């Protein structure tokens, strides 16, 4: 067991196909999974910030993103294990505007400032 918090993610529920990074991961980093139902580690495919989610399984476009055991949104394109899951590839079933926000800063892109 590598206890380094730099590559740890928390998986809340056994149905979840994503886990939440507790610290930043770089491409190629092995991510260890903590939580009530631990799983084998998986390599990160890209840089993922702490608090953001990593895919644990292959997710087809239109399939649900599951965290806490419930659907928190839907994939807008195919997602591979180890990929970052956020606004750029996951949409809310309610809040349409969130898909237009900048995935890094969360800032709106649809409000004219001129």
């Amino acid at each position, binding site marked *: 067991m590598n206890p380094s*918090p730099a590559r*740890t993610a*928390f998986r*809340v529920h056994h149905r979840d196909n994503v886990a*939440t*990074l*507790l610290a930043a991961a770089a491409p190629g980093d092995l991510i260890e999974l*903590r939580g009530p139902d631990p799983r084998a580690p998986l390599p990160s495919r890209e840089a993922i*910030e*702490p*608090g*953001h*989610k990593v895919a644990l399984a292959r997710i087809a476009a239109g399939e649900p*993103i599951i*965290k*806490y055991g*419930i*659907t*928190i*949104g839907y994939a807008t394109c195919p997602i591979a294990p180890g990929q970052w*899951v*956020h*606004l750029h590839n*996951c*949409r*809310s*079933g*309610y*809040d349409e*505007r*969130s898909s237009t*926000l900048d*995935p*890094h*800063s*969360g*800032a*709106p892109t649809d409000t004219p400032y001129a």
Partner: protein
Amino acid sequence: MPEPLPRASWTGYLRPDGRKGVRNIVLVIYTVECASHVAHAIAADEPDTHVIGFPGCYDNAYAIRLMLALAQHPNVGACLCVGLGCEYTQPRLLADRVAQSGRPARWFFIQNTGGTRASIEQGKQIVAELRQQIQNTPRVPMSWQDLVIGCECGGSDTTSGLAGNPTVGSFFDALVDAGGTAIFEEIVEAIGLRDFLLARAASPEARDQLTAAYDKAVAYCQTVRQYSVSPGNFAGGLTTIEEKSMGALAKSGSRPIQGVIKVGQAPPRLGLWLLDSVPDEHFMQFGYTNPNDTEGIMDLIAAGSQIVLFVTGRGSVIGSPIAPLVKITGNRATFQKLHEDMDFDASRVLDGQATLQSQAQELAQLLAQIAAGQPSKPERLGHREYFIMYKHQNTPPLDVGCRA
């Protein structure tokens, strides 16, 4: 099955209406902004004397219900209502209603008394008399089944949904199992979880109430085209309102939901309750559902919570009048940086040093000490933030649903 709560008992204050408090407070209430300076000056440097009020000159049924519920809170022993003299909200009527609960209640108008200094002097004299009157309040043994505990979250980060709120959820399960009462709010942060929420209804009536509250919240968010999720939440890794909702709802634990109360109502029975603070339809369309954390905390106190839990991942430096606020964070860096303000570190579950159940047990021990009189961190620092606004809710009279 969660571990049962540790056995705990402490001595509380028995009010004439049968409610049991964990503090013995004199409340000063101003009935318009024009009287607020005098009210605060009256309470300044007086022990256990807190201030609430309403800034508007034109009165508001919702605000009066809220103030009356706060003035008859289990932790409140007596109250003094201070008006300027020309506002709509009537200090005499507030004091009369509070006196019906058996609590000593006095009032005066500043315009009849003679200005700032004379009014402060008179107010301080009255507060001293009220304190004298409640000094011999009967003491009574209390335990978990006598407690109503509310929970709010704010300044959330990714740890709130993973550690802070689930720790409270685990504590709430044990509190309900011990015969106590738990209240959670923020129905706008249950959006996306309709089926999940309705499946937890304790009865068909509760299911109807949850359906109405949920559908109203969704309609409200659609109308204002704003969900309770912000750029900072997205930057921190939350992707959808559904994800934020699930993290927020984790604080409710897993026990059946007995029903929905509105602002100013107390839970009519033991168990777990949802507090709905979303405005109802009104021709003026005024009010706002959660303008800041303090509003939600005041709503939970108005429901009779003797203690309120506040889960904050990013950290916060607020407190509350009337009921101790207990601040919990699931973020270790926040706990270390704001250690003078934060009461409980719920982050240990994330690195495997603790389980949700063991943290819930530790939280229970801390709450038993605070119920016994140990000040919470915000109390020690003198925090008494208060907020009230114009709003409309279709609420039955205060007597309905008020637990003795």
